[in-house]
């Protein structure tokens, strides 16, 4: 067999270099894809678990964190792929390093391209390379099959994601059941396996703040969508139960003001992601009703004071319609459909004696999506049908529960600040 010429030998080397390059790049591409898959699957698994278990605030923070982390990781993987990706010029050097050729291959190919074949030592270098061709065959230099570590990582992450989907139904909280309680105007909430809390009443909840940014609403929407997808019909049933309960207390909330709702929400923030927490609690017994043992104690955390004043703003509209306009203790015209005309109470006639008067302040309650839609700027919405007329019959007068002591010197200022204005826009 004739000896190959240096040109033939160089061509053989170039072919083998191309094969090594193709194989190595494919290997690296596989590895990067597995890493990306592992990243995405792990992020998705974490998001699913957090969406089902965590509160909306925690989920929002975690979602942004996971999103940012995933993007960074993906960028790092892409950058690593770029660094490991073999270019045409860099492949001989890479082969030299990995096959311990001590620069023979790169030198021969570079000098061969540059016309260095006339150098006295060049034939020796080419022959030396030919002798070592077997040392850097593609199948010897680049491992066969897939990158096992990256593949295992991707497999584990995908498995975790599937597991999260599988266990999702078990993570759903029990649907609260709303049942009439003993006392008039009460609805008890029961969860699976627990006795109903008979002393608790339900009020509708204020919608989320309207000034929320789109970015801050995104995680909430994502969480809602995940829950919707994974919990499906069960979740719908829970929602319907909530709506039924809301309808049942609509009559009871006649005369309450949205301001009271909002104040209650501000003073007692409630975890709105928990379906049970979608029910705001008012411990104040109705006047004339005998309080139960549980109600005589101090209001528990999450319970809003001034429950008789708490109501949905839609009820305020109905009240305004019933009263036929502004009176001495009624809201002025245009004060808003949910305005409590007697929010500040009667002016104190005992100022000189007590030197203080009491300003009623109600707390605000908060939940997601439980309350009626806010009234539009035009006509007030039609009143909701009275689903529980027996509760409506037991409606009692509003009475301020908490009153803040204000020195007489500030009375005019405070009253001015809290007074209803005819020009106040409906909220």
């Amino acid at each position, binding site marked *: 067999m004739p000896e190959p010429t240096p040109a033939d030998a160089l061509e053989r080397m170039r072919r083998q270099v191309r094969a090594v390059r193709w194989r190595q790049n494919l290997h690296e591409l596989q590895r990067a894809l597995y890493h990306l898959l592992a990243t995405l699957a792990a992020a998705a698994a974490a998001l699913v678990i957090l969406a089902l278990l965590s509160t909306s605030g925690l989920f929002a923070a975690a979602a942004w964190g996971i999103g940012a982390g995933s993007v960074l990781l993906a960028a790092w993987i892409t950058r690593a792929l770029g660094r490991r990706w073999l270019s045409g010029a860099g492949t001989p*050097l890479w082969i030299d390093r990995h096959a311990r050729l001590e*620069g023979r291959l790169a030198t021969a190919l570079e000098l061969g391209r540059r016309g260095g074949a006339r*150098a006295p*030592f060049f034939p*020796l270098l080419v022959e030396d390379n030919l002798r070592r061709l077997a040392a850097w065959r593609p199948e010897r230099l680049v491992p066969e099959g897939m990158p096992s570590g990256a593949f295992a990582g991707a497999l584990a992450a995908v498995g975790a994601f599937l597991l999260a989907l599988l266990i999702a139904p078990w993570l759903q909280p029990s649907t609260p059941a709303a049942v009439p309680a003993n006392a008039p105007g009460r609805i008890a909430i029961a969860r699976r396996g627990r006795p109903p809390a008979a002393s608790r009443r339900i009020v509708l909840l204020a919608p989320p703040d309207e000034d929320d940014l789109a970015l801050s609403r995104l995680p909430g929407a994502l969480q809602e969508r995940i829950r919707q997808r994974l919990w499906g019909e069960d979740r719908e049933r829970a929602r319907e139960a909530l709506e039924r309960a809301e309808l049942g207390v609509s009559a009871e909330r006649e005369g309450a003001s949205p301001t009271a709702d909002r104040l209650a929400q501000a003073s007692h923030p409630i975890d709105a992601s928990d379906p049970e927490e979608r029910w705001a609690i008012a411990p104040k017994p109705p006047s004339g009703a005998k309080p139960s043992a549980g109600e005589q104690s101090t209001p528990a955390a999450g319970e809003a004071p001034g429950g008789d004043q708490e109501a949905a703003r839609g009820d305020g509209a109905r009240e305004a319609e019933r009263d036929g306009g502004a009176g001495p203790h009624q809201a002025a015209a245009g004060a808003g459909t949910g305005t409590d005309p007697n929010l500040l109470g009667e002016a104190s006639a005992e100022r000189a004696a007590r030197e203080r008067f009491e300003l009623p302040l109600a707390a605000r309650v908060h939940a997601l999506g439980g309350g009626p839609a806010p009234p539009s700027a035009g006509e007030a919405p039609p009143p909701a049908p009275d689903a529980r007329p027996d509760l409506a019959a037991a409606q009692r007068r509003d009475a301020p529960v908490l009153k803040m002591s204000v020195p007489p010197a500030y009375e005019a200022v405070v009253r001015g600040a809290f007074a209803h204005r005819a020009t106040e826009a409906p909220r």
Partner: protein
Amino acid sequence: MTPAVAEAAIRDFQDTFAAVRREIGRVVVGHEHAIDVILTAFFAGGHVLIEGVPGIGKTLIVRSLAEALNLTFNRVQFTVDLMPADITGTRVINEGADGRREFVFVPGPVFAHILLADEINRATPKTQSALLEAMAEQQVTVAGTSHPLAPPFFVLATLNPIEMEGTYQLPEAQLDRFLFKVLLDYPSAAELERILGETTAAELPAVRPVLPRETAARRVEELKRLVRQVLVAPHMERHVAALVRATVPAAGELPEAMARYVTYGSSPRGGQALILGAKVMALLAGRPHITFEDVERVALPALRHRLVMSYAAEAAGVDAAQVVEGVLASARHARA
């Protein structure tokens, strides 16, 4: 050159180098690395500056090298009153048999294959520059006439790091003419015991010539030509250029922590020294081409004396060797 011939030439180089190395080792105790660097510079066609305290074998190394290669050797002890003509030679009036008088050039000690310029920093700059012209151009000019020096011409200059009074430090431009700078350390305890035993015995070890006198110079030149034929790939040229540029603060490639310690970086001669030294290293490794490792092996002696360090470096105790090591480490990291 066929592969077989090339392989034989490389083996011949390795054998000659090893034989000279072995003969020098018979009389010089220790200093193995320094001897390797000196021999590398010799076959690369450069000159060497040795820095070391007196009495540690500088002269012995050079004389042994000359004896092993069977080349002519001269030694000049540089002093403050040494004149250029004392090195290069001078014209004297010579009266012939017929009574005619004419100027005749009498070659100085520079006319030898190997010249030891002992304590070169004790001579005046004028005398130093006379030697440096010979080193750079392989010729001396006397009275307008150039006299070429017979190849091979190898200068080994020494610097005494102590007794600095009354010395004339070599300017950077002259330091740059030396291919390598070697630091000779004080011998270790074991080496010192061997030195004492061997140099005070009845029979002193002698160096046997490796090459026959008649062909020695020609053979050395052949070996030096072989060194020049070693292949250098473009990527190695880029690497060496990057190393040299990395020592130059103005180029902006020196790490910021190091940049304040260096006033001036290496000249392009530093790059030439790196490649020539690497070529010798490649042949010694039996390769017809240089590698990154070859360059790294000669980087310290090739670049160390070419960096001008700042006062900040002196205050911080940072020397040029540390900067070169840092540059090499950066290059290694970039390659990985």
